[in-house]
């Protein structure tokens, strides 16, 4: 079974600074998808960024980018120019065809953004 590990229960960053959230995963598959989801307090989970394993180029979405290291099975999220609205739980997730593309989530990292 695939496992997703987020080793940082909490992280803190100052406004306008950069923060990196870590994620590692375990799989024997070669074709899969990785995601970062954001869950603000009392609000629904939304997709931040996604990465297809077959793509070597790291995904970017505005201030959000990933460092995908396939051999190391590492998938970190970098948030640049942090904003107060970035404060949330961030979940790393994995999916592939074997599970019908259902998401397999890590335990999450709580990000605090300070003024």
């Amino acid at each position, binding site marked *: 079974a695939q496992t997703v590990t987020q080793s940082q229960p909490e992280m803190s960053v100052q406004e306008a600074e950069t923060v990196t959230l870590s994620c590692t995963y375990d799989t024997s598959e070669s074709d899969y998808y990785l995601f970062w989801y954001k869950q603000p307090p009392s609000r629904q989970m939304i997709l931040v960024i996604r990465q297809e394993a077959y793509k070597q180029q790291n995904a970017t979405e505005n201030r959000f980018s990933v460092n995908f290291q396939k051999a190391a099975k590492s998938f970190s999220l970098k948030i640049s120019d942090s904003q107060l609205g970035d404060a949330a739980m961030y*979940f790393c997730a994995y999916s592939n065809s074997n599970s019908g593309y259902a998401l397999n989530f890590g*335990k999450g990292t709580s990000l605090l953004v300070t003024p």
Partner: protein
Amino acid sequence: EAEVAQSPRYKITEKSQAVAFWCDPISGHATLYWYRQILGQGPELLVQFQDESVVDDSQLPKDRFSAERLKGVDSTLKIQPAELGDSAMYLCASSPGKWGGTDTQYFGPGTRLTVL
């Protein structure tokens, strides 16, 4: 912008009672997921539907949980009888295509269940 709707948003019940949660996915989305999120953890899949058919319910405690999506549109998740350990957030998500695939999953706001 279309959203996944869930109701109720909050539910408090006593153990051994029956509870039901409803989810209305984004119109036209073929795949629907129910996840359970225990406080402080990531969501875990309970059941996945492709149209009206169950794709995966291997993690659904079938002695007390049931789920249906009769017309391939909205879905109901039921727990009977509820147990203290069922206290959690129940999340519904949908995605456009068949078998999920590369599609983004869109989540509803969830139903927070408290079992006393």
